[in-house]
């Protein structure tokens, strides 16, 4: 087990090193540097930038050394917790990214807090009796909500609850300080989009367990239905959903970009998109590394958890 985790962590470090080197090399091109220079110096077009100004700017920013030298310096910085400085916001990346990650973390927390109980309950109710009316109803809702892309869900929810009923604001920029009402729509969008998938997986797992021999034995033995479900079926039926839920952590980093941009919520996804559109190398670099880190960690949690929860694997 420890060896497995160690292997995966080693692989993660390798992947992160490769990825960050590639990003440094990519954003080292003249085109990108000129683009940033123009954006920062306040010019109008790349062609209007004089070579002298450009060289001076490169010199000031320390960008005129080859990218591998900058890369080594950057790696040294990462070791000491310094992720460089944002070109666009002129702020240390560590602080910027930290703030944004906290915001996204709050969003993700509420999404998980609502999505996990909802999807597990619905999945189990649907999977208890395969083909029954409630199974069909839950499956239909799950397919429907998963088919609506986040952007469409966001729009429909905004139109109904913010523009029509005016219960919550349509914009989540939190300009006037923290306001939980602005969090409602982003969280609802992500939950609605995501719960269908987890529900379907839980349902499939539950349905499979319910057809197994030991459940039949328990029913024939005359155990009460409630006991069969709670004590016998659930234990096995919840192993597969656990892995799926852990992997949703990875997915949420993708899903969060659209939702944050649409609702103007100042989180990780919006930071990444803004940085990418601006060409803000150090921010992109740091955000990508965080994304890869979270993705790999969620995969490890899912793998290890599955092995740990499943006695057939644990004791073999």
């Amino acid at each position, binding site marked *: 087990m420890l060896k497995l985790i160690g292997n995966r962590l080693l*692989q*993660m470090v390798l*992947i992160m090193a*490769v*990825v960050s080197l590639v*990003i440094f090399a*990519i*954003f080292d091109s003249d085109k990108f540097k000129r683009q940033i220079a123009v954006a920062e110096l306040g010019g109008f077009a790349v062609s209007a930038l004089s070579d002298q100004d450009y060289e001076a700017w490169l010199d000031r920013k320390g960008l005129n050394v080859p990218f591998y030298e900058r890369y080594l310096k950057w790696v040294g910085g990462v070791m000491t917790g310094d992720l460089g400085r944002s070109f666009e916001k002129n702020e240390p990346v560590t602080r910027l990214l930290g703030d944004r990650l906290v915001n996204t973390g709050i969003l993700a927390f509420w999404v998980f807090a609502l999505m996990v109980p909802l999807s597990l309950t619905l999945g189990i109710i649907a999977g208890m009796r395969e083909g029954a009316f409630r199974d069909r109803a839950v499956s239909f809702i799950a*397919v*429907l909500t*998963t*088919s*609506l*892309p*986040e*952007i*469409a869900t966001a*729009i*429909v929810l*905004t*139109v109904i609850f*913010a*523009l*029509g009923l005016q219960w919550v604001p*349509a*914009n989540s920029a939190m300009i006037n300080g923290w306001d939980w009402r602005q969090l409602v729509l982003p969280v609802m969008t992500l939950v609605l989009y995501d719960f269908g998938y987890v529900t379907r997986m839980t349902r499939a797992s539950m349905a499979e367990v319910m057809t197994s021999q030991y459940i039949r034995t328990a029913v024939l033995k005359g155990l009460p239905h409630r006991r069969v479900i709670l004590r016998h079926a659930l234990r096995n039926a919840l192993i597969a959903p656990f892995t799926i839920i852990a992997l949703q952590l*990875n*997915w949420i*980093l*993708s*899903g969060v*970009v*659209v939702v944050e*941009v*649409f609702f103007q919520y100042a989180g990780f*996804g919006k930071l*990444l*998109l803004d940085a*990418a*559109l601006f*060409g803000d190398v150090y921010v*992109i670099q740091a*955000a*990508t590394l965080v*994304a*890869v880190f*979270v*993705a*790999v960690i969620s*995969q490890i949690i899912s793998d290890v958890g599955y092995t740990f929860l499943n006695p057939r694997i644990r004791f073999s």
Partner: protein
Amino acid sequence: MASVEVLATPPSAPPIAAPAPVPLLRRLQRPRPCLALLLLMWIPLTVSVMFGGYLGDPLRTWILLPALPATLLLYVVAVVSWRESTIAVVGVSLVFFWLIVAVAVPFLPLVDPNKPLAPFTGIGVEKNGHLFLLGADLKGRDMLSRVLWGCQRVLVWGVTATLVAYVVGCMLGLMAGYLAKWWDQVISFIANVLLSFPVMVLFILILNYLGASGFNIVIAVTFASAPAIMRIVRGLTLDTKTRDYIFAAQTRGEHPLRIMIYELLPNARGPIIVDACLRLGYTTVAITTLTFLGLGLQPPDPDWGLMIKEAAKVAMLWKFSYMLLIPALSVSSLILGFNLMADGLREMSLRD
């Protein structure tokens, strides 16, 4: 020898009844006519959307003429062959609704989707001598016309991107599975690197580097989807490559490439087709989302993601919410169609 000859020409055989004529519809359901119909529908549409600028105006429209009957015929064939699954028929109907619209839209009596007529005109209002059935957007362009034209780009780029991702993914998967050894090591490592990115982060990085355009979306989708496809195909290949008929092919001295494409690939067909339907949905979502984020298809031509992006800045009022709702519901219906199709196909493949 003699007996063979006798069998071949029986001396006084009773007159053999001519085989009952196969109905046309049944004949069209065979793979080859189906493929011909698909190509007849697809090539004109793709050429018209991707290279319409080079073709010029009348040619760009008339090239779609053969695709129109092909699409209708294909819809009938699809409904007939999948009629045992209601879900699949509903899905196919949704997808083909948009396909037929995509092919037929130049022949419909619509106004130019890029012509500003009357800004912020509501639904069903007549203004400046034109009836706006679905209203007009912020620049006064007819929404009905824009929504119907918009499906062309989403469909063409979405399917092209998925197709390219599948060709690349299948090839790599077959190589990793069949050739094994260091091929497998290298391909699997690259796939692992790409799979450890959240998809949207990968899209943003690639499109930001390459620039925003349809062709670059194809490349980005390939990078994001091919590793997952490769894993599926690799698993299936590892499973089938120990079968006897593969050994037979090896003994016959067939080239590895031939074995991969003619012996191994057909066996992976079932799971791949179901996965392809789902992935078409994902790609459609991705293209719409990326266009919304400003990394995808470029204005001014109508496109659903673009319509959302433009309207999101100004339409945050109940009165103008149709500008957001119409493209959002259109894209949802297309994706629902793909997903239901995948569900129906899976159901049917499980049944037999």
